[in-house]
């Protein structure tokens, strides 16, 4: 018996686009072929635990971003201690942690991307560095210059080298870099998990909306504890070079 989760259709409801997510149990390949669906999200044999290799990818947990202004500092303080603990527990279980590091590109053709704030993210600077609390020596740092963590860099190669199938996306901001990286990860064939208490934005309502969107379109939203429980249950194992 195979359980298939899929998006059946997209529709307008109350001025919003809504993706209809469904799952079915099928016995034969014929039924699978006849499914009326847009995108298959996942499939697994009922009763079987399929171990999937995963990695945590954090977005923009950097000094300049975390200390941008008072509201941001407050938002980061609210989520960082538990998230740091989550990262430590996951590392202890062999889950690799990859930090996306936004770096200022002096040649960025977008003229509006050369503000004083953007220029704080100069490569090698303290401002651009990953927060001490979340960064360990074993972690991998991948630089990026755009919102999506996959844009024109080697993140995909890094994950592929570790045979990663599931990307656990955390960090900030939920509605920009986390959300776009989630979309890009899906398009590249990764399963996306987003811990609702492992992402942050200056405005809580932005995180709420981003989580709704990610749950609808590209991934599964769980808590950090639920994801850690998946690791303990053996459903998620750390990505590893072969």
């Amino acid at each position, binding site marked *: 018996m195979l359980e298939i989760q899929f998006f059946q259709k*997209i529709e307008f409801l109350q001025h919003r*686009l809504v993706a209809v997510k469904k799952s079915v149990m099928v016995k034969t390949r014929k039924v699978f072929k006849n499914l009326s669906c847009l995108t298959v999200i996942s499939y697994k044999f009922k009763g079987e635990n399929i171990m999937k290799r995963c990695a945590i990818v954090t977005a923009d947990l950097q000094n300049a971003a975390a200390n941008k202004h008072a509201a941001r500092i407050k938002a980061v303080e609210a989520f960082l201690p538990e998230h740091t603990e989550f990262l430590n527990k996951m590392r202890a279980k062999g889950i690799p942690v990859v930090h996306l590091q936004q770096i200022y590109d002096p040649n960025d053709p977008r003229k509006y991307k050369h503000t004083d704030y953007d220029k704080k993210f100069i490569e090698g600077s303290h401002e651009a560095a990953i927060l001490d609390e979340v960064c360990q020596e074993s972690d991998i740092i991948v630089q990026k210059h755009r919102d999506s963590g996959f844009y024109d860099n080697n993140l995909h190669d890094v994950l592929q080298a570790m045979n990663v199938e599931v990307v656990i996306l955390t960090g900030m901001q939920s509605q920009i870099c986390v959300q776009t990286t989630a*979309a*890009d990860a899906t398009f590249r064939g990764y399963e996306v998990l987003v811990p609702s208490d492992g992402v942050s934005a200056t405005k809580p309502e932005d995180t709420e909306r981003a989580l709704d969107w990610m749950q609808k379109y590209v991934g599964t939203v769980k808590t950090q504890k639920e994801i850690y429980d998946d690791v303990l249950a053996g459903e998620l194992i750390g990505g590893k070079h072969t």
Partner: protein
Amino acid sequence: MKMTKDIGRIVLDHGTGGLLSEDLISSIIIPRLGSVSTGELADSAVLDMHGKKIAVTTDSFSIDPIFFGNGNIGKVSVCGTINDLAVSGATPLYLTLAFIIEEDFPLADFEQILDSVREAAQEAQVHIVAGDTKVVGLGEADKIFVNTTGIGYFKHGRTHISPRNIRKNDNIIVTGLLGNHSIHILSIREGLGFESRVLSDCAPLNGMIAQVLEDHAPDIHFMRDLTRGGLGSVLSEVVALSGLGVEITMDKLPMQYEMKMAADMLGINPIYLANEGNISMFVSPKATNDILNKIRQHPYGKHASVVGHVTDDLIKRVIGLGDDGQITIIEPLYGRELPRLC
């Protein structure tokens, strides 16, 4: 709602095809030009040349970024003007091509743009007959801006395509996927992750339009390309110009799944997004199926769909019907949905 005279200066919203663009033209440009302007605001001007009708149109392009996944500013500059001529029912013949280039612009990039101009012009079967090149200092322009002017003629003297010719019960066909061009450009500009999944629809549509006109010209009452302001702005304009209403069925709008995802993420309505290879056609009910089938046979029209029809209800508005019966009024766009897409 602040209009041009209240604002007192030019703002980005004046260039995005919405209400403010229209206000700039009608309240400032046309009155100021006075009798030297015809005052007509169609996609192409229809001019009498010693008894023969010709179509003339002009457009400027400032797209950012100038290079995108499946095209560049050169391709957009040819296709945009070709399509403006074609939707007026004209057969494009000639283009002019003018550049404003920022000092230090790489020659290799310029050559690549010229290659795209050549390829698009070859596909559209037009000749470039005049051009101009101006170079400005660093920072005085953003890399390269292009202007093209197009000239066409009306086969069999067909000049009936006009909003005045739209009839009650006309069906509305949209020939391609909505919003892809805008989402592609925006995704490349900001690195949103959709750029490889959602490609620009930029294409010269004169070939497809000519095929349909050949057999069905009398049944095609009006056409408009869905560039700045998208379908929403075109339908609002049709309502204003025709004195009729429009009803569209929201789930008939042709949209790619990933484009919807992106629009929902950004909180923007795809109905207002700019396209560069997509038009709306207002056609008589009796010929709708034949026209639709013909369009779908063309590579640029395979996603064509009948999205609604023209009404003469008391409420002269653009009404969107949801599949749950919910009614949405589609308002004219005031200013920018997204800037510098074409």
